[in-house]
Protein backbone atom coordinates (compact mmCIF):
# COMPACT_ATOMS: atom_id res chain seq x y z
CA UNK A 1 0.00 0.00 0.00
CA UNK A 2 2.73 2.38 1.01
CA UNK A 3 4.60 1.45 -2.14
CA UNK A 4 1.60 2.49 -4.26
CA UNK A 5 1.30 5.81 -2.48
CA UNK A 6 5.00 6.46 -3.00
CA UNK A 7 4.59 5.71 -6.70
CA UNK A 8 1.60 7.98 -6.97
CA UNK A 9 3.34 10.85 -5.24
CA UNK A 10 6.53 10.49 -7.27
CA UNK A 11 4.64 10.59 -10.57
CA UNK A 12 1.71 12.70 -9.45
CA UNK A 13 1.99 15.30 -12.21
CA UNK A 14 2.13 12.65 -14.91
CA UNK A 15 -0.84 10.85 -13.40
CA UNK A 16 -2.84 14.07 -13.27
CA UNK A 17 -2.09 14.81 -16.91
CA UNK A 18 -3.04 11.27 -17.96
CA UNK A 19 -6.30 11.31 -16.02
CA UNK A 20 -7.38 14.69 -17.33
CA UNK A 21 -6.32 14.02 -20.94
CA UNK A 22 -8.22 10.74 -20.98
CA UNK A 23 -11.32 12.55 -19.80
CA UNK A 24 -10.76 15.30 -22.35
CA UNK A 25 -10.26 12.84 -25.21
CA UNK A 26 -13.45 10.98 -24.35
CA UNK A 27 -15.44 14.17 -23.89
CA UNK A 28 -14.27 15.69 -27.17
CA UNK A 29 -15.10 12.58 -29.20
CA UNK A 30 -18.33 11.30 -27.64
CA UNK A 31 -20.79 13.38 -29.63
CA UNK A 32 -19.36 12.87 -33.09
CA UNK A 33 -21.80 12.05 -35.89
CA UNK A 34 -20.79 8.81 -37.59
CA UNK A 35 -20.31 10.75 -40.83
CA UNK A 36 -17.13 12.17 -39.36
CA UNK A 37 -15.70 8.97 -37.89
CA UNK A 38 -13.24 8.38 -40.70
CA UNK A 39 -11.84 11.92 -40.94
CA UNK A 40 -11.69 12.11 -37.17
CA UNK A 41 -9.78 8.86 -36.93
CA UNK A 42 -7.44 10.10 -39.61
CA UNK A 43 -6.99 13.47 -37.88
CA UNK A 44 -6.31 11.81 -34.52
CA UNK A 45 -3.84 9.53 -36.28
CA UNK A 46 -1.99 12.61 -37.55
CA UNK A 47 -1.86 14.05 -34.04
CA UNK A 48 -0.30 10.82 -32.76
CA UNK A 49 2.58 11.76 -35.06
CA UNK A 50 3.60 14.11 -32.23
CA UNK A 51 6.28 11.46 -31.61
CA UNK A 52 8.19 13.46 -34.23
CA UNK A 53 9.07 15.90 -31.41
CA UNK A 54 10.80 13.01 -29.64
CA UNK A 55 12.62 12.15 -32.85
CA UNK A 56 13.84 15.74 -33.21
CA UNK A 57 15.14 15.76 -29.63
CA UNK A 58 16.85 12.40 -30.16
CA UNK A 59 18.61 13.31 -33.40
CA UNK A 60 19.17 16.86 -32.17
CA UNK A 61 21.50 15.72 -29.44
CA UNK A 62 23.01 12.73 -31.21
CA UNK A 63 26.70 12.64 -32.00
CA UNK A 64 27.06 13.45 -35.69
CA UNK A 65 30.82 12.94 -35.65
CA UNK A 66 30.46 9.32 -36.66
CA UNK A 67 27.77 7.21 -38.21
CA UNK A 68 26.14 5.39 -35.34
CA UNK A 69 23.08 3.23 -34.81
CA UNK A 70 21.55 6.10 -32.88
CA UNK A 71 22.01 8.54 -35.75
CA UNK A 72 20.71 6.26 -38.50
CA UNK A 73 17.72 4.86 -36.64
CA UNK A 74 17.03 8.34 -35.24
CA UNK A 75 16.89 9.83 -38.73
CA UNK A 76 14.61 6.97 -39.74
CA UNK A 77 12.37 7.80 -36.78
CA UNK A 78 12.18 11.46 -37.84
CA UNK A 79 11.32 10.52 -41.42
CA UNK A 80 8.67 8.00 -40.34
CA UNK A 81 7.22 10.44 -37.83
CA UNK A 82 6.98 13.17 -40.45
CA UNK A 83 5.29 10.74 -42.82
CA UNK A 84 2.67 10.16 -40.15
CA UNK A 85 2.18 13.88 -39.55
CA UNK A 86 2.27 15.19 -43.12
CA UNK A 87 0.45 12.26 -44.68
CA UNK A 88 -2.10 12.17 -41.90
CA UNK A 89 -3.07 15.83 -42.09
CA UNK A 90 -3.13 15.90 -45.89
CA UNK A 91 -5.31 12.79 -46.13
CA UNK A 92 -7.69 14.21 -43.54
CA UNK A 93 -7.89 17.48 -45.43
CA UNK A 94 -8.65 15.64 -48.64
CA UNK A 95 -11.53 13.82 -47.02
CA UNK A 96 -12.92 17.01 -45.50
CA UNK A 97 -12.50 18.93 -48.74
CA UNK A 98 -15.18 16.72 -50.22
CA UNK A 99 -17.57 17.44 -47.43
CA UNK A 100 -17.15 21.12 -48.02
CA UNK A 101 -17.58 21.02 -51.76
CA UNK A 102 -21.07 19.60 -51.75
CA UNK A 103 -22.33 22.03 -49.15
CA UNK A 104 -22.65 24.86 -51.65
Amino acid at each position, binding site marked *: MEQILIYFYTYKEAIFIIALSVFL*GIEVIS*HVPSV*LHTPLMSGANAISGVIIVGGIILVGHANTGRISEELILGILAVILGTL*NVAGGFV*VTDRMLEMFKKKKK
Partner: protein
Amino acid sequence: MDKIIGTSGALPFTTGDAILELSYLLAALLFVYGLKLLSHPETARKGNFYAAGGMVLAMATTLLLHKNNLHESIPLTNAIIIVISIAVGTVIGWIMARRVKMTAMPQMVSFFNATGGAASALVALLEFPKANMGNTGSVLVTLLGLIIGSIAFSGSMIAYGKLDGKVGDIRSKNMKYVNMLLLAVTVALMLFMMFSGHAPEELNWHIYLLFGLSLLYGVLFVMPIGGADMPVVISLLNSFTGIAAAMAGFIYNNEAMILGGILVGAAGSILTVLMCKAMNRSLLNVIVGAFGGSASGETQAEGTMKEITLSDASILLAYSQNVVIIPGYGMAVAQAQHACRELDKLLESRGVTVRYAIHPVAGRMPGHMNVLLAEADVPYNKLIEMDDINPDMPNTDVAVVIGANDVVNPAAINDPGSPIAGMPIIHAHEARNIIVMKRGRGKGYAGIENTLFFDSKTRLLFGNAKDSLHNLINEIKNL
Protein backbone atom coordinates in the same frame (compact mmCIF):
# COMPACT_ATOMS: atom_id res chain seq x y z
CA MET B 1 17.35 33.61 -25.58
CA ASP B 2 20.03 32.11 -23.39
CA LYS B 3 19.67 34.60 -20.60
CA ILE B 4 18.89 32.88 -17.33
CA ILE B 5 15.73 34.46 -16.03
CA GLY B 6 14.90 32.36 -12.99
CA THR B 7 15.12 29.02 -11.29
CA SER B 8 12.62 26.24 -10.95
CA GLY B 9 13.27 23.52 -8.36
CA ALA B 10 16.87 24.75 -7.99
CA LEU B 11 17.43 24.44 -11.77
CA PRO B 12 18.09 27.66 -13.67
CA PHE B 13 16.07 28.27 -16.83
CA THR B 14 16.39 30.72 -19.68
CA THR B 15 13.99 32.79 -21.79
CA GLY B 16 14.25 30.12 -24.49
CA ASP B 17 13.24 27.36 -22.06
CA ALA B 18 10.20 29.32 -20.98
CA ILE B 19 9.16 30.09 -24.56
CA LEU B 20 9.59 26.43 -25.51
CA GLU B 21 7.27 25.29 -22.73
CA LEU B 22 4.80 28.01 -23.65
CA SER B 23 4.80 26.83 -27.26
CA TYR B 24 4.11 23.26 -26.04
CA LEU B 25 1.15 24.53 -24.07
CA LEU B 26 -0.14 26.32 -27.14
CA ALA B 27 0.43 23.22 -29.29
CA ALA B 28 -1.43 21.03 -26.78
CA LEU B 29 -4.34 23.48 -26.76
CA LEU B 30 -4.39 23.51 -30.56
CA PHE B 31 -4.58 19.68 -30.55
CA VAL B 32 -7.54 19.71 -28.19
CA TYR B 33 -9.32 22.53 -29.98
CA GLY B 34 -8.56 20.99 -33.38
CA LEU B 35 -10.00 17.65 -32.32
CA LYS B 36 -13.06 19.42 -30.96
CA LEU B 37 -13.63 21.28 -34.25
CA LEU B 38 -13.03 18.03 -36.15
CA SER B 39 -16.13 16.58 -34.57
CA HIS B 40 -18.52 18.97 -36.33
CA PRO B 41 -19.07 18.85 -40.10
CA GLU B 42 -19.06 22.64 -40.43
CA THR B 43 -15.76 23.22 -38.68
CA ALA B 44 -13.93 19.97 -39.34
CA ARG B 45 -11.56 21.28 -41.94
CA LYS B 46 -10.54 24.20 -39.77
CA GLY B 47 -9.96 21.79 -36.89
CA ASN B 48 -7.58 19.71 -38.95
CA PHE B 49 -5.74 22.88 -39.90
CA TYR B 50 -5.42 23.98 -36.26
CA ALA B 51 -4.09 20.60 -35.16
CA ALA B 52 -1.55 20.68 -37.99
CA GLY B 53 -0.57 24.19 -36.90
CA GLY B 54 0.02 22.95 -33.37
CA MET B 55 2.24 20.21 -34.72
CA VAL B 56 4.33 22.55 -36.87
CA LEU B 57 4.70 24.91 -33.91
CA ALA B 58 5.90 22.15 -31.58
CA MET B 59 8.34 20.85 -34.20
CA ALA B 60 9.79 24.30 -34.96
CA THR B 61 10.26 25.43 -31.37
CA THR B 62 11.78 22.07 -30.39
CA LEU B 63 14.30 22.38 -33.19
CA LEU B 64 15.19 25.97 -32.27
CA LEU B 65 15.00 25.99 -28.50
CA HIS B 66 15.39 22.49 -27.11
CA LYS B 67 18.27 21.90 -24.72
CA ASN B 68 19.52 18.63 -23.31
CA ASN B 69 20.38 17.99 -19.66
CA LEU B 70 23.73 19.71 -20.11
CA HIS B 71 22.00 22.84 -21.38
CA GLU B 72 23.31 22.42 -24.90
CA SER B 73 21.16 23.57 -27.79
CA ILE B 74 20.75 21.47 -30.93
CA PRO B 75 23.95 21.98 -32.99
CA LEU B 76 23.67 23.30 -36.54
CA THR B 77 24.80 20.03 -38.17
CA ASN B 78 22.10 18.10 -36.31
CA ALA B 79 19.52 20.75 -37.14
CA ILE B 80 20.36 20.48 -40.84
CA ILE B 81 20.09 16.69 -40.72
CA ILE B 82 16.70 17.00 -39.01
CA VAL B 83 15.38 19.56 -41.51
CA ILE B 84 16.44 17.33 -44.41
CA SER B 85 14.80 14.29 -42.79
CA ILE B 86 11.61 16.24 -42.20
CA ALA B 87 11.64 17.48 -45.80
CA VAL B 88 12.03 13.91 -47.08
CA GLY B 89 9.19 12.67 -44.85
CA THR B 90 6.93 15.56 -45.80
CA VAL B 91 7.43 15.14 -49.53
CA ILE B 92 6.84 11.38 -49.43
CA GLY B 93 3.84 11.73 -47.12
CA TRP B 94 2.35 14.53 -49.18
CA ILE B 95 2.68 12.68 -52.45
CA MET B 96 1.25 9.46 -51.03
CA ALA B 97 -1.67 11.28 -49.43
CA ARG B 98 -2.42 13.25 -52.62
CA ARG B 99 -2.19 10.31 -54.96
CA VAL B 100 -4.19 7.77 -53.01
CA LYS B 101 -7.62 6.94 -54.37
CA MET B 102 -10.56 7.65 -52.11
CA THR B 103 -11.42 3.96 -52.01
CA ALA B 104 -7.96 3.16 -50.69
CA MET B 105 -8.26 5.70 -47.88
CA PRO B 106 -8.63 3.15 -45.04
CA GLN B 107 -5.40 1.38 -45.89
CA MET B 108 -3.64 4.72 -46.27
CA VAL B 109 -4.65 5.75 -42.75
CA SER B 110 -3.50 2.37 -41.51
CA PHE B 111 -0.15 2.83 -43.24
CA PHE B 112 0.43 6.28 -41.73
CA ASN B 113 -0.52 4.86 -38.36
CA ALA B 114 2.14 2.20 -38.84
CA THR B 115 4.83 4.82 -39.52
CA GLY B 116 3.91 6.68 -36.33
CA GLY B 117 4.11 3.46 -34.33
CA ALA B 118 7.48 2.64 -35.86
CA ALA B 119 8.82 6.09 -34.97
CA SER B 120 7.70 5.62 -31.36
CA ALA B 121 9.30 2.19 -31.17
CA LEU B 122 12.59 3.48 -32.60
CA VAL B 123 12.72 6.43 -30.19
CA ALA B 124 12.14 4.09 -27.23
CA LEU B 125 14.71 1.61 -28.55
CA LEU B 126 17.35 4.33 -28.81
CA GLU B 127 16.53 5.93 -25.49
CA PHE B 128 16.77 2.68 -23.53
CA PRO B 129 20.60 2.64 -23.34
CA LYS B 130 20.47 6.05 -21.64
CA ALA B 131 17.82 5.01 -19.12
CA ASN B 132 18.40 5.40 -15.42
CA MET B 133 17.62 1.88 -14.19
CA GLY B 134 17.05 3.11 -10.66
CA ASN B 135 14.00 5.04 -11.82
CA THR B 136 11.58 2.19 -12.54
CA GLY B 137 8.87 4.59 -13.69
CA SER B 138 11.07 5.94 -16.48
CA VAL B 139 12.23 2.43 -17.49
CA LEU B 140 8.61 1.31 -17.55
CA VAL B 141 7.50 4.06 -19.95
CA THR B 142 10.47 3.41 -22.22
CA LEU B 143 9.76 -0.31 -22.47
CA LEU B 144 6.01 0.22 -22.81
CA GLY B 145 6.67 2.75 -25.58
CA LEU B 146 8.75 0.15 -27.38
CA ILE B 147 6.19 -2.64 -26.96
CA ILE B 148 3.09 -0.60 -27.82
CA GLY B 149 4.78 1.24 -30.69
CA SER B 150 6.00 -2.03 -32.21
CA ILE B 151 2.57 -3.66 -31.94
CA ALA B 152 0.99 -0.58 -33.54
CA PHE B 153 3.54 -0.73 -36.35
CA SER B 154 3.41 -4.40 -37.28
CA GLY B 155 -0.34 -4.64 -36.59
CA SER B 156 -1.11 -1.63 -38.79
CA MET B 157 1.08 -2.99 -41.58
CA ILE B 158 -0.86 -6.27 -41.52
CA ALA B 159 -4.15 -4.33 -41.46
CA TYR B 160 -2.87 -2.30 -44.42
CA GLY B 161 -1.98 -5.50 -46.26
CA LYS B 162 -5.37 -7.03 -45.55
CA LEU B 163 -7.31 -4.00 -46.74
CA ASP B 164 -5.16 -3.85 -49.83
CA GLY B 165 -5.83 -7.51 -50.48
CA LYS B 166 -2.17 -8.45 -50.11
CA VAL B 167 -2.56 -10.45 -46.91
CA GLY B 168 -5.20 -13.09 -46.28
CA ASP B 169 -6.75 -14.22 -43.02
CA ILE B 170 -5.02 -16.91 -41.07
CA ARG B 171 -7.27 -18.57 -38.58
CA SER B 172 -6.58 -21.37 -36.21
CA LYS B 173 -8.27 -22.45 -33.03
CA ASN B 174 -4.99 -22.40 -31.13
CA MET B 175 -4.05 -18.94 -32.31
CA LYS B 176 -5.52 -17.21 -29.31
CA TYR B 177 -3.54 -19.40 -26.92
CA VAL B 178 -0.37 -18.70 -28.86
CA ASN B 179 -1.15 -14.99 -28.71
CA MET B 180 -1.83 -15.04 -24.99
CA LEU B 181 1.38 -16.95 -24.36
CA LEU B 182 3.35 -14.53 -26.51
CA LEU B 183 1.88 -11.55 -24.68
CA ALA B 184 2.69 -13.15 -21.33
CA VAL B 185 6.30 -13.79 -22.39
CA THR B 186 6.61 -10.19 -23.62
CA VAL B 187 5.32 -8.75 -20.36
CA ALA B 188 7.50 -11.13 -18.33
CA LEU B 189 10.58 -10.05 -20.27
CA MET B 190 9.68 -6.41 -19.69
CA LEU B 191 9.31 -6.97 -15.94
CA PHE B 192 12.58 -8.89 -15.84
CA MET B 193 14.39 -6.00 -17.53
CA MET B 194 12.89 -3.53 -15.09
CA PHE B 195 13.77 -5.38 -11.93
CA SER B 196 16.84 -7.42 -12.84
CA GLY B 197 19.15 -4.75 -11.52
CA HIS B 198 21.29 -4.91 -14.68
CA ALA B 199 22.60 -1.81 -16.38
CA PRO B 200 21.13 -1.05 -19.85
CA GLU B 201 24.36 -2.18 -21.60
CA GLU B 202 23.96 -5.62 -20.06
CA LEU B 203 20.44 -5.85 -21.45
CA ASN B 204 21.43 -5.13 -25.02
CA TRP B 205 20.10 -8.34 -26.55
CA HIS B 206 17.08 -8.32 -24.26
CA ILE B 207 15.83 -5.06 -25.69
CA TYR B 208 16.08 -6.37 -29.25
CA LEU B 209 14.34 -9.57 -28.19
CA LEU B 210 11.58 -7.46 -26.67
CA PHE B 211 11.37 -5.44 -29.91
CA GLY B 212 11.11 -8.66 -31.95
CA LEU B 213 8.52 -10.26 -29.68
CA SER B 214 6.35 -7.14 -29.79
CA LEU B 215 6.54 -6.97 -33.58
CA LEU B 216 5.57 -10.64 -33.80
CA TYR B 217 2.70 -10.11 -31.40
CA GLY B 218 1.37 -7.26 -33.55
CA VAL B 219 1.37 -9.54 -36.60
CA LEU B 220 -0.31 -12.45 -34.84
CA PHE B 221 -2.78 -10.15 -33.12
CA VAL B 222 -4.21 -8.79 -36.38
CA MET B 223 -3.72 -11.90 -38.53
CA PRO B 224 -6.85 -13.85 -37.46
CA ILE B 225 -9.18 -10.83 -37.47
CA GLY B 226 -11.43 -10.75 -40.52
CA GLY B 227 -11.35 -7.95 -43.08
CA ALA B 228 -14.79 -6.75 -42.03
CA ASP B 229 -13.48 -5.94 -38.58
CA MET B 230 -10.48 -3.97 -39.83
CA PRO B 231 -12.05 -0.57 -39.02
CA VAL B 232 -12.21 -1.52 -35.37
CA VAL B 233 -8.66 -2.80 -35.47
CA ILE B 234 -7.28 0.32 -37.15
CA SER B 235 -9.02 2.52 -34.63
CA LEU B 236 -7.62 0.41 -31.78
CA LEU B 237 -4.09 0.50 -33.21
CA ASN B 238 -4.48 4.24 -33.72
CA SER B 239 -5.05 4.62 -30.00
CA PHE B 240 -1.99 2.41 -29.42
CA THR B 241 0.16 4.79 -31.46
CA GLY B 242 -1.13 7.66 -29.36
CA ILE B 243 -0.25 5.86 -26.13
CA ALA B 244 3.19 4.96 -27.46
CA ALA B 245 3.83 8.63 -28.31
CA ALA B 246 2.71 9.61 -24.81
CA MET B 247 5.14 7.08 -23.30
CA ALA B 248 7.95 8.71 -25.28
CA GLY B 249 6.65 12.03 -23.96
CA PHE B 250 7.31 10.80 -20.42
CA ILE B 251 10.89 9.90 -21.35
CA TYR B 252 11.52 13.49 -22.42
CA ASN B 253 9.17 15.01 -19.88
CA ASN B 254 7.49 16.71 -22.83
CA GLU B 255 3.93 17.82 -22.11
CA ALA B 256 2.93 18.36 -25.76
CA MET B 257 3.78 14.74 -26.53
CA ILE B 258 2.10 13.42 -23.39
CA LEU B 259 -1.10 15.36 -23.90
CA GLY B 260 -1.29 14.81 -27.66
CA GLY B 261 -0.58 11.10 -27.25
CA ILE B 262 -3.04 10.45 -24.43
CA LEU B 263 -5.68 12.51 -26.22
CA VAL B 264 -5.39 10.31 -29.29
CA GLY B 265 -5.24 7.22 -27.10
CA ALA B 266 -8.50 8.14 -25.38
CA ALA B 267 -10.24 9.33 -28.53
CA GLY B 268 -9.16 6.21 -30.42
CA SER B 269 -10.44 3.94 -27.65
CA ILE B 270 -13.80 5.69 -27.57
CA LEU B 271 -14.10 5.49 -31.34
CA THR B 272 -13.28 1.78 -31.14
CA VAL B 273 -16.01 1.23 -28.56
CA LEU B 274 -18.53 3.24 -30.63
CA MET B 275 -17.77 1.08 -33.65
CA CYS B 276 -18.11 -2.13 -31.68
CA LYS B 277 -21.45 -0.88 -30.39
CA ALA B 278 -22.59 -0.19 -33.94
CA MET B 279 -22.01 -3.87 -34.66
CA ASN B 280 -23.42 -4.94 -31.30
CA ARG B 281 -20.27 -6.82 -30.42
CA SER B 282 -17.77 -6.54 -27.64
CA LEU B 283 -14.19 -5.58 -28.33
CA LEU B 284 -13.05 -8.94 -26.96
CA ASN B 285 -15.37 -10.64 -29.41
CA VAL B 286 -13.76 -8.78 -32.30
CA ILE B 287 -10.23 -9.55 -31.16
CA VAL B 288 -10.81 -13.22 -30.50
CA GLY B 289 -12.57 -13.34 -33.83
CA ALA B 290 -16.09 -14.69 -33.63
CA PHE B 291 -16.80 -14.35 -37.35
CA GLY B 292 -15.55 -17.82 -38.13
CA GLY B 293 -16.40 -19.31 -41.48
CA SER B 294 -17.78 -22.37 -39.71
CA ALA B 295 -20.45 -20.54 -37.72
CA SER B 296 -23.47 -21.01 -39.91
CA GLY B 297 -26.31 -20.28 -37.52
CA GLU B 298 -29.65 -21.97 -37.93
CA THR B 299 -30.79 -19.94 -40.88
CA GLN B 300 -31.40 -22.00 -43.93
CA ALA B 301 -32.11 -19.95 -46.96
CA GLU B 302 -35.56 -20.76 -48.31
CA GLY B 303 -36.63 -20.10 -51.84
CA THR B 304 -34.34 -19.16 -54.68
CA MET B 305 -32.52 -16.06 -55.80
CA LYS B 306 -34.54 -14.37 -58.50
CA GLU B 307 -32.79 -12.29 -61.12
CA ILE B 308 -34.25 -9.17 -62.67
CA THR B 309 -33.69 -7.89 -66.19
CA LEU B 310 -32.35 -4.41 -66.76
CA SER B 311 -35.56 -3.20 -68.38
CA ASP B 312 -37.71 -4.48 -65.52
CA ALA B 313 -35.40 -2.85 -63.00
CA SER B 314 -35.41 0.45 -64.86
CA ILE B 315 -39.20 0.52 -65.07
CA LEU B 316 -39.53 -0.37 -61.40
CA LEU B 317 -37.20 2.47 -60.41
CA ALA B 318 -38.45 5.10 -62.85
CA TYR B 319 -42.10 4.70 -61.84
CA SER B 320 -41.66 4.55 -58.08
CA GLN B 321 -41.93 7.53 -55.74
CA ASN B 322 -39.58 6.70 -52.97
CA VAL B 323 -36.21 5.03 -53.48
CA VAL B 324 -33.59 4.30 -50.83
CA ILE B 325 -30.09 3.38 -51.90
CA ILE B 326 -28.12 1.22 -49.45
CA PRO B 327 -24.43 1.25 -50.33
CA GLY B 328 -21.80 -1.16 -49.03
CA TYR B 329 -18.22 -2.13 -49.62
CA GLY B 330 -19.07 -3.51 -53.07
CA MET B 331 -19.80 0.04 -54.20
CA ALA B 332 -16.39 1.17 -52.99
CA VAL B 333 -14.63 -1.70 -54.73
CA ALA B 334 -16.42 -1.05 -58.01
CA GLN B 335 -15.80 2.73 -57.68
CA ALA B 336 -19.49 3.06 -58.42
CA GLN B 337 -20.22 6.19 -56.38
CA HIS B 338 -20.28 8.52 -59.40
CA ALA B 339 -22.54 6.21 -61.39
CA CYS B 340 -24.72 5.96 -58.32
CA ARG B 341 -25.02 9.73 -58.10
CA GLU B 342 -25.87 9.85 -61.80
CA LEU B 343 -28.71 7.37 -61.34
CA ASP B 344 -29.90 9.36 -58.35
CA LYS B 345 -29.97 12.60 -60.38
CA LEU B 346 -31.75 10.95 -63.28
CA LEU B 347 -34.43 9.54 -61.00
CA GLU B 348 -34.84 12.87 -59.21
CA SER B 349 -35.38 14.58 -62.56
CA ARG B 350 -38.29 12.18 -63.04
CA GLY B 351 -39.74 13.16 -59.69
CA VAL B 352 -38.55 10.19 -57.66
CA THR B 353 -37.33 10.91 -54.12
CA VAL B 354 -33.93 9.29 -53.68
CA ARG B 355 -32.19 8.97 -50.35
CA TYR B 356 -29.19 7.02 -49.08
CA ALA B 357 -29.28 4.80 -46.01
CA ILE B 358 -25.92 4.73 -44.29
CA HIS B 359 -25.08 1.91 -41.92
CA PRO B 360 -22.46 2.99 -39.40
CA VAL B 361 -20.11 0.17 -40.31
CA ALA B 362 -20.81 -0.13 -44.02
CA GLY B 363 -17.56 -0.25 -45.94
CA ARG B 364 -14.20 -0.77 -44.39
CA MET B 365 -14.16 2.22 -42.07
CA PRO B 366 -16.88 4.04 -40.20
CA GLY B 367 -18.06 6.88 -42.39
CA HIS B 368 -16.42 5.24 -45.42
CA MET B 369 -19.65 5.52 -47.42
CA ASN B 370 -20.11 9.17 -46.46
CA VAL B 371 -16.65 9.99 -47.73
CA LEU B 372 -17.19 8.15 -51.01
CA LEU B 373 -20.61 9.65 -51.67
CA ALA B 374 -19.35 13.08 -50.73
CA GLU B 375 -16.69 12.61 -53.39
CA ALA B 376 -19.47 12.05 -55.91
CA ASP B 377 -21.20 15.29 -54.81
CA VAL B 378 -24.14 13.66 -53.09
CA PRO B 379 -25.66 16.36 -50.86
CA TYR B 380 -25.11 15.92 -47.17
CA ASN B 381 -28.82 15.94 -46.29
CA LYS B 382 -29.54 12.95 -48.55
CA LEU B 383 -27.34 10.69 -46.46
CA ILE B 384 -29.60 9.34 -43.75
CA GLU B 385 -28.28 7.43 -40.78
CA MET B 386 -29.61 3.97 -40.05
CA ASP B 387 -31.79 4.85 -37.05
CA ASP B 388 -33.47 7.70 -38.93
CA ILE B 389 -34.20 5.79 -42.12
CA ASN B 390 -35.48 2.53 -40.62
CA PRO B 391 -38.94 3.87 -39.64
CA ASP B 392 -39.38 4.97 -43.29
CA MET B 393 -38.45 1.63 -44.81
CA PRO B 394 -42.01 0.17 -44.93
CA ASN B 395 -43.07 3.20 -47.02
CA THR B 396 -40.17 2.80 -49.42
CA ASP B 397 -41.06 1.62 -52.92
CA VAL B 398 -37.65 0.30 -53.83
CA ALA B 399 -34.60 -0.36 -51.69
CA VAL B 400 -31.52 -0.58 -53.90
CA VAL B 401 -28.75 -2.53 -52.19
CA ILE B 402 -25.41 -1.80 -53.87
CA GLY B 403 -22.67 -4.11 -52.71
CA ALA B 404 -23.90 -4.32 -49.12
CA ASN B 405 -24.58 -7.66 -47.49
CA ASP B 406 -24.28 -8.25 -43.76
CA VAL B 407 -25.65 -4.80 -42.86
CA VAL B 408 -29.00 -5.70 -44.49
CA ASN B 409 -29.18 -9.32 -43.37
CA PRO B 410 -32.51 -9.90 -41.57
CA ALA B 411 -30.91 -12.86 -39.77
CA ALA B 412 -29.54 -10.29 -37.33
CA ILE B 413 -33.13 -9.75 -36.16
CA ASN B 414 -34.84 -13.07 -36.90
CA ASP B 415 -32.26 -15.67 -36.05
CA PRO B 416 -30.88 -15.66 -32.50
CA GLY B 417 -28.39 -18.37 -33.48
CA SER B 418 -26.80 -16.29 -36.21
CA PRO B 419 -23.27 -15.01 -35.63
CA ILE B 420 -24.51 -11.49 -36.33
CA ALA B 421 -27.62 -11.79 -34.14
CA GLY B 422 -28.44 -8.52 -32.47
CA MET B 423 -26.36 -6.40 -34.84
CA PRO B 424 -28.43 -3.37 -35.86
CA ILE B 425 -29.23 -3.50 -39.57
CA ILE B 426 -30.94 -1.38 -42.17
CA HIS B 427 -34.42 -2.82 -42.59
CA ALA B 428 -34.21 -3.24 -46.36
CA HIS B 429 -36.48 -6.29 -46.12
CA GLU B 430 -39.38 -4.05 -45.09
CA ALA B 431 -39.35 -2.12 -48.37
CA ARG B 432 -42.02 -2.96 -50.98
CA ASN B 433 -39.41 -4.05 -53.51
CA ILE B 434 -35.74 -4.75 -53.15
CA ILE B 435 -33.14 -4.70 -55.89
CA VAL B 436 -29.77 -6.15 -54.92
CA MET B 437 -26.72 -5.41 -57.05
CA LYS B 438 -24.16 -8.07 -56.42
CA ARG B 439 -21.10 -9.38 -58.14
CA GLY B 440 -21.83 -13.06 -57.59
CA ARG B 441 -23.77 -15.46 -55.48
CA GLY B 442 -21.16 -15.48 -52.71
CA LYS B 443 -21.66 -14.71 -49.08
CA GLY B 444 -20.67 -11.55 -47.22
CA TYR B 445 -17.67 -11.07 -44.99
CA ALA B 446 -19.37 -12.71 -42.05
CA GLY B 447 -19.65 -15.83 -44.20
CA ILE B 448 -23.34 -16.34 -43.59
CA GLU B 449 -26.29 -16.77 -45.88
CA ASN B 450 -28.36 -13.65 -46.35
CA THR B 451 -32.09 -14.42 -46.30
CA LEU B 452 -32.84 -11.05 -47.85
CA PHE B 453 -31.51 -12.32 -51.18
CA PHE B 454 -34.06 -15.14 -51.14
CA ASP B 455 -36.98 -12.94 -50.11
CA SER B 456 -39.96 -13.04 -52.47
CA LYS B 457 -39.77 -9.24 -52.84
CA THR B 458 -36.10 -9.29 -53.77
CA ARG B 459 -34.71 -9.26 -57.29
CA LEU B 460 -31.01 -9.55 -58.03
CA LEU B 461 -28.95 -7.77 -60.63
CA PHE B 462 -25.65 -9.60 -60.99
CA GLY B 463 -22.49 -7.96 -62.20
CA ASN B 464 -20.02 -5.23 -61.35
CA ALA B 465 -21.95 -2.44 -59.59
CA LYS B 466 -20.56 0.29 -61.83
CA ASP B 467 -21.49 -1.53 -65.04
CA SER B 468 -24.93 -2.42 -63.71
CA LEU B 469 -25.57 1.20 -62.77
CA HIS B 470 -24.43 2.51 -66.16
CA ASN B 471 -26.64 0.01 -67.97
CA LEU B 472 -29.53 0.93 -65.74
CA ILE B 473 -29.02 4.64 -66.41
CA ASN B 474 -29.07 4.03 -70.18
CA GLU B 475 -32.22 1.96 -69.89
CA ILE B 476 -34.02 4.63 -67.90
CA LYS B 477 -32.92 7.34 -70.36
CA ASN B 478 -34.48 5.30 -73.16
CA LEU B 479 -37.82 4.87 -71.43
